């Protein structure tokens, strides 16, 4: 899933930039500016790539065991053995940050993937069929949105127990309404296009039209938005771990590490600082890339 998202988004960024260069109108200039790859773009991709690779290959890297306490390293500072020092139990911070990336990325990517799949499909149905389907779905969306999201997740975790799967499903449910709205808006635009009408005149079934004609045009804006949501969910997972409701210890997660250092914040700020910095940079990279990509596919509801 991470591979597909990233590849689709990168390939597409190039296209509008080229198209924009062809004529000199004002919008084209804007598009060109958004698509032009600045230094920040490369830094963001490099950081993100490094985090993802480190997370994937963590077991192969020469790291300390992230779960084993070392009493000689409690509150340890930066040393040649422990590059980022040790935490309240003396566990190696670098190793825990890298293993924590696994949890954070897994939650973010899986929840977004699931939410985008369900929400994207429902949104296409709402946009294509309109009428009763649409009204029903808009009602469902409103119900979910009227329900406080954090409370929902807390309830799931408090009652079903905190596990990776529960977190992912809970977050996915919360993201579905937004994906429905987005995909519905994109569908409304595409459904007017000639090739869809041609397919309809041709006698194609609605299912075929939705999945063969409309879906390919809806996937991109949904994926671009989903990319940003990965960053959002990384923060949410962190917030839950901060409340003690995230991924259960001893599995490291960024939010859990930040929370663990909270009591020693004034004496040993580095315990919270390093995971917080890594989380910050990762989310920043995702937002930076996502924002640029999303601009190209923005579907303004007011334009419909």
């Amino acid at each position: 899933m991470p591979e597909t998202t990233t590849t689709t988004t990168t390939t597409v960024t190039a296209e509008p930039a080229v198209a924009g260069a062809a004529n000199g109108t004002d919008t084209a200039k804007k598009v060109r500016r958004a698509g032009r790859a600045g230094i920040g773009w490369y830094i963001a991709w490099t950081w993100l790539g490094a985090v993802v690779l480190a997370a994937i290959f963590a077991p192969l890297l020469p790291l300390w065991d992230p779960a084993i306490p070392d009493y000689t390293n409690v509150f340890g500072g930066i040393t040649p053995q422990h590059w980022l020092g040790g935490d309240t139990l003396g566990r190696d911070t670098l190793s825990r940050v890298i293993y924590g990336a696994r949890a954070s990325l897994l939650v973010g990517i899986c929840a977004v993937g699931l939410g985008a799949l369900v929400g994207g499909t429902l949104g296409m149905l709402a946009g294509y069929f309109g009428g009763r389907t649409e009204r029903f779905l808009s009602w469902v969306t409103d119900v979910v949105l009227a329900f406080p999201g954090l409370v929902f997740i807390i309830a799931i975790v408090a009652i079903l127990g905190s596990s990776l799967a529960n977190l992912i499903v809970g977050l996915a449910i919360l993201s579905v309404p937004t994906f429905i709205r987005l995909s519905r808006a994109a569908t409304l635009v595409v459904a007017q296009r000639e090739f869809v009408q041609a397919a309809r005149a041709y006698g194609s079934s609605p299912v075929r039209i939705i999945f063969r004609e409309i879906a390919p045009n809806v996937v991109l804006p949904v994926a671009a938005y989903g990319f940003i949501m990965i960053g959002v969910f990384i923060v949410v997972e962190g917030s839950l771990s901060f409340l003690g409701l995230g991924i259960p210890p001893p599995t490291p997660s960024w939010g859990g590490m930040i929370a663990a250092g909270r009591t020693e914040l004034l004496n040993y700020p580095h315990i919270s600082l390093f995971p917080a910095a890594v989380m910050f940079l990762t989310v920043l990279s995702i937002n930076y890339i996502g924002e640029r990509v999303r601009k190209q596919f923005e579907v303004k509801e007011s334009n419909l």
Partner: protein
Amino acid sequence: MADTMATTPAAPATAAGPGGGTGGVSRGTKRKYALRRIRKRLTHLLLVLLAVTFLSFVVVDLLPGDAAVVVAGDNATPEQVQQVREDLQLDRPVLIRYVDWLGGVLTGDLGSSFRTGQPVAEALAQRIPVTFEITIVAQVLALLIAVPLAVWSAYRPGRLVDRASMTLGFGAAAMPNFVFGMVLIVLFAGGVSSILPATGYTGFFENPLENLRSIILPCLTLMIAEAAVYRQLLRSDMTSTLQEDFILMARSKGLSPMTILFRHALRPSSFSLITLSGVNIGRLLGGTVIVETLFAIPGLGQLIVQAVFNRDYMILQGALLFVAVAYVVINMLIDLLYLALDPRVRRDA
């Protein structure tokens, strides 16, 4: 969590509806239209309310873990648990309990806590003002910072203010609010300086000055990411407004830039901002849990979380009802505000 959902400017459903706009309709038709729109919206939102409360009732009931067992305590005998279950009327079918509860709500009775026996209405009355104060102050701060920055950025795009506020905004939006809150605590409440209290809350009527001091850090924490998102949103809407003909007209009349920006351009540009701000207020009322936990503030968020852990369903149900009603009412208000703000909506819609 939903802190985070903020990035989605969710336009209300009606605003997105296909507009079959006709120009010169009579005043009476317009008014009739507006009324019909309000009525339709109201029915829709009432249905949403019913669904939210019913779903939370059913879901809470279906979830594993018996409230009676939790309430009776660890050492209770099966008979005692049964007694508690009957006392709390948990042995009756969920549908009947829901209808009962709904009847209570309509007559102003929200029931009382399983745990402490405190009436739910009383518990809510203690907590809501706290969360409400923090939410509103944070929103006002966020708008006060975001609006001038956004207007200036749109007026002089690519210049210092625009670029600096964009960079800072990106940073702020990527910073989880509990991290920002911790940084603030280190800076102002114990680490670098100790000019503000790190935790606790003082009521406004107890001591207005202390109250102000106790909400500064929580409000700053809540405000920062919102301000970033608001600036971004308003700047982009403002940029497109500034390219419209009526701005050119205003400019050629020789109006001052300030008049054009704030009196002519701001109003039609503020739709998404108002929507998002409204959505955020509704969302924050139930979602300041993290900030409340970090700063030990006895607000609605803490009440809800404790209710979940204690299986105190009556409290939970009452709190959720309040959050849902707030969401619905705010949505209504936003919708009406559209009508008031931009005459074009009255005609087109």
